[in-house]
């Protein structure tokens, strides 16, 4: 057993510290905190004192499961990332807790992902892919059989793509990379990684259906409605939150083209194309950044809490 086998779960997913602006990091922590709090409450209701050993060992399973790879071609190999599988088998609350434990431990122990940006990593690798994959799987819940296995595969692939999209968006909103390059590059790479994830997820689920079908039906039904709603809200909030930022930041493709064009024409032209723009939309000034971040966290957290609270079924 050598270090090479240690899971390097899609290196480009674990954002290190320093690559996101502080405001974005804090907003992500706010969103994550609400999701984690809800997941802890729901899971405690469902599992009581069983929760800790169950979630802890399933988190260790995801970590170990990421070691199981299969050769693809030319020395590369595919392996599990796990959010979709975890959410489907364990339900969204327990699944999110297990994924969170994996991400936190990877950051604390291996520096695989930063500490201050951990909230963003939890969104990118846990919340968004987990709920996206789970929602797609649940959508075909009633069809049953092969249809649902196929849905799990589609869900796993979409989950990876969503995760890649979130990472690319967060990076470009922080002014660390350009939107027009990061989004297609990340999606392109992860379209392939997603196929590996989809194949493993489907095969693992097929295996569990054959050997232990009750595991899927029981856990699935317990929290289905909840996960659906929360998943929808998650996507809506993310879009709502980031769309103003996106439109405010300069279109990367455009600026590249213009720069290139300008340079081709006149080598030493003073191209202050966008004199007012600094790419980090929320500024680099210390106090203002913190203030903006904290206000953002409070608003988002309050909004999320009210929404999820009202939408949660009172009797479950």
């Amino acid at each position, binding site marked *: 057993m050598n270090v090479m086998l240690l899971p390097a779960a899609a290196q480009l997913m674990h954002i290190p510290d320093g690559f996101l602006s502080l405001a974005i990091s804090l907003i992500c922590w706010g969103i994550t905190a609400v999701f984690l709090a809800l997941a802890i409450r729901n899971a405690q209701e469902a599992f009581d004192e069983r929760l*800790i050993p169950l979630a802890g060992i399933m988190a260790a399973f995801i970590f170990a499961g990421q070691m199981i790879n299969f050769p693809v071609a030319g020395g590369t190999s595919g392996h599990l990332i796990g959010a979709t599988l975890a959410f489907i088998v364990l339900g969204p609350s327990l699944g999110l807790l297990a994924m969170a434990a994996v991400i936190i431990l990877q950051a604390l122990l291996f520096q695989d992902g930063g500490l201050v940006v951990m909230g963003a990593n939890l969104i990118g690798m846990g919340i968004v892919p987990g709920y996206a994959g789970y929602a797609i799987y649940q959508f075909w819940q009633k069809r049953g059989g092969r249809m649902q296995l196929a849905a799990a595969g589609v869900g796993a692939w979409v989950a990876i793509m969503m995760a890649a999209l979130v990472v690319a968006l967060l990076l470009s909103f922080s002014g660390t*990379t*350009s939107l027009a390059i990061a989004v297609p590059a990340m999606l392109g790479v992860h379209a392939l990684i997603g196929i590996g994830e989809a194949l493993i997820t489907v095969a693992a689920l097929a295996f569990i259906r054959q050997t232990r079908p009750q595991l899927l039906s029981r856990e699935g039904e317990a929290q289905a409605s909840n996960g659906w709603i929360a998943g929808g809200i998650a996507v809506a909030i993310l879009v709502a939150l980031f769309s103003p930022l996106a439109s405010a930041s300069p279109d990367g493709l455009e600026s590249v083209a213009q720069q290139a064009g300008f340079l081709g024409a006149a080598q030493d032209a003073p191209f202050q194309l966008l004199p007012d723009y600094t790419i980090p939309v929320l500024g680099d000034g210390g106090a203002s950044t913190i203030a903006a971040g904290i206000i953002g966290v409070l608003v988002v957290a309050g909004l999320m809490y009210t929404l999820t609270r009202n939408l949660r079924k009172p009797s479950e």
Partner: protein
Amino acid sequence: MHVNTFDRYESRQSAIHQLDPRVKVVVTVLFIVANALLPDGAWLAFLAAWALLLFVSGAAQIGLGWLLKRSLIVGPFLLAAVTVVFTLPGNGLAQWQLGPWTLVPTDAGLLRFVSIFIRSWLSVQMAILLTATTQFPDLIHALHHLRVPNVLVSIISFMYRYLFELANEAGRLLRARESRSAAGVNGRSSSGGSLFWRAKIAGHMVGQLLLRSFERSDRVYNAMVARGYNGRLLTMNPHHMKSSDWQLGGVGVVAILLIQLVARL
């Protein structure tokens, strides 16, 4: 595989190692937050932050080479950040022809890229030092004292406890597969059926591992209940803040504030 396979602790007898883990966690997080607040091109402040890092690693008797090697983990992300060199508006420094595209590195872009690199590199090294000077159970315990929700802390410590067990389990599954089919001859990876077949086998192994983990959690839970577990984990390792902990922590915070001051002068 040994219990400590996954731990990144470097055993030494230094003042940093003996510092209360809470102090180390707080100072590390403050250092990383402060780094994120340093403006682009604050070279003097970057230098000061690096000096602080060198001082801590020296006091902790952690070698610079070792630190450097482990900090390479930020490498892949630099690839994502390198695009700002060309996309940030500023004065063009050169003009490179790359197929159909004309790449123009700008001074503003270069400044930003180098600043991102330095901030990230400093941050990851401090986090590495934290893990290298603190045993993981102590680190988790510090999180508990710092009011991280108890359930989450307990889940993480449980995960850590069973990490090597399940990694061993996965290792056995991999070994069994290798001895039966999928390992190629002469580095070729194509033996053992089609791509779909290989993916299916890997998926079955993941499912197998999941079921075994599920059953293990059942056994562990029953064993815990038999010993009086009621949903709360107890610790036999209480930490107490000594006056030296407060002092060293204070020194760290002041140093971090000074670095911010340097950046804004």
